[in-house]
């Protein structure tokens, strides 16, 4: 099912970075979000319909309408943008980005398996696909049309995911999902191998920051909502973080939520959450948003530090994802009558 990994060869950095910079200039400026939050829902929809997303909205207008149309158009645009990047990059750069975007393949496989497990209609499963990874929409659609989870897994037997998928036991989707996510990072580390090549080193730094943020969020979720023992929790953690290695995480696992927050003070991520980190906090969503903002800021600083590397491209990918996220928050938030303050707090600008 999966196309063979692209030959590494020489990368076209100058061309790729120039194109990505041009694409980045088309991203919505910060001030636009403030304007959008103050607009009425119809005005926001019209704004999106007349922006970079026009083509996607027009293409999907026959199938969807209203807020759903906007959400699907945003997802479609994200998928086509990432596919475009993969198509104009070469060699090592293309190889790294392809590996990074496998995240979407995993998301799509999970979505199909969930849908099959639940017995959801094929159309509804297809609606949840975001073909921004290596598996094309056609391949994913064919998977969604299979009769059962076992048939989907069987159809994926020539992929790297099969080694995990074959262990699937009915009703135990969560195990497979967690293993697939672990596999994503371990396979990223494995395939990128040596970090002597500067581009891979930059990329690794970026990924390891992402792992730290994922692990911190996971630790907080486990402490706040979970009743999972420390041993089982340790299996969930992702190895390879930049500041928090597995040994350090193991020390954090038995701590209470309050002690965990105190322990996080010594890491650089603390600055991002210090203002709102309170042991009695009701919701973790604001903390998660702050960490996402931190992740974006870090990507932005990498991109200035290493202007002719993978960093500006990763920065664009993250900013594009963020633009989609922000637009969705504004559109859905407005349609659901969420307060402007709540919407503004969740925007990562």
């Amino acid at each position, binding site marked *: 099912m999966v196309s063979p990994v692209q030959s590494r060869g020489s990368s076209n950095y100058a061309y790729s970075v120039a194109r990505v910079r041009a694409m980045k200039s088309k991203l919505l400026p910060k001030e636009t979000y403030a304007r959008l939050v103050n607009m009425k829902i119809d005005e926001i929809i019209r704004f999106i319909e007349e922006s970079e997303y026009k083509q996607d909205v027009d293409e999907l207008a026959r199938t969807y309408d209203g807020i*759903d149309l906007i*959400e*699907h158009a945003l*997802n479609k645009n994200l998928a086509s943008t990432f596919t475009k990047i993969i198509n104009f990059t070469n060699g090592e750069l293309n190889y790294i980005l392809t590996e990074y975007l496998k995240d979407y393949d*995993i*998301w799509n496989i*999970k*979505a199909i398996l*969930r*849908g099959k*497990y*639940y*017995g*959801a209609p094929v159309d*509804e499963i297809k*609606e*949840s696909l*975001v073909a921004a990874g290596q598996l094309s929409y056609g391949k994913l659609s064919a998977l969604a049309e299979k009769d059962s989870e076992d048939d989907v897994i069987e159809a994926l037997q020539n992929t790297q995911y099969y080694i995990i998928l074959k262990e699937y036991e009915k*009703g135990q*989707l*969560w*195990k*497979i*999902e*967690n293993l*697939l*996510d*672990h596999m994503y990072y371990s396979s990223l580390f494995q395939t990128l191998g040596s970090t002597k090549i500067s581009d891979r080193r930059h990329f690794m730094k970026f990924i390891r920051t992402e792992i730290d943020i*994922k692990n911190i*969020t*996971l630790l*907080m*979720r*486990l402490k*706040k*909502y*979970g*009743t*999972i023992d420390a041993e*089982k929790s340790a299996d*969930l953690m*992702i190895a390879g973080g930049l500041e928090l290695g597995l040994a350090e995480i193991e020390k954090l696992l038995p701590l209470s939520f309050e002690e965990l927050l105190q322990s996080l003070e010594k890491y650089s991520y603390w600055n991002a959450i210090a203002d709102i980190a309170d042991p009695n906090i009701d*919701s*973790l*969503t604001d*903390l*998660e948003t702050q960490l996402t903002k931190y992740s974006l800021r870090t990507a932005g600083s990498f991109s200035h530090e290493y202007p002719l590397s993978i960093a500006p491209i990763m920065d664009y990918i993250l900013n594009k994802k963020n633009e989609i*996220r922000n637009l*969705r*928050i504004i*559109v*859905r*938030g407005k349609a*659901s009558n*969420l307060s402007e303050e*709540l*919407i503004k707090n*969740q925007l990562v600008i």
Partner: protein
Amino acid sequence: MGAQDVKPTRSELIALKKKIKLSESGHKLLKMKRDGLILEFFDILNQAKDVRNELDAAYANATEKFKFAEAVEGRVTVKSTAFALKNTPEITLRSHNIMGVVVPKIDSSKVHKSLNQRGYGILGTSSYIDEAVESYEILVDKIILAAEIETTMKKLLDDIEKTKRRVNALEFKVIPELSEAMAFISLRLEEMERENTFRLKRIKA
């Protein structure tokens, strides 16, 4: 039963006296049952008010968390995550007796689950999803509790109404009619007694 329809006989009078005695003791018991049920009802009413308030709050919270998760993660993600859990809560219905009124007792499997029992993988999801799921789990738990209490309350109300009707029927219809019939028979028997005495005196004379 009109007083005029009864046969003015001594045996009828004895039967009526028995009926009145039975009706009066039934009336007393039913009144006691009605008062007892009303007391139970007020107890349940307070619980029902609390549960209803908690249910309203849980519903408002769940709706907000859901909208929030939908806004941040997208409807597509929320829907797909929801597909990961197919289990429906198992509910066992038992009955429970309050002063002769059979009310339901609902035992359900715990809907509120820990993070690793929700069907979806933790690594690929976020706290927005966790909070939406948690708030809906709490809501379902509250709905089950409210269903038990509100059904009990409705059954008690029905039974209070029924008992009240019986008490009123006994108090204002059955007992007065029986008393009237008894009075009529007594009067008639006395009359017959007097007629008899007069007849005997006439024969003697």
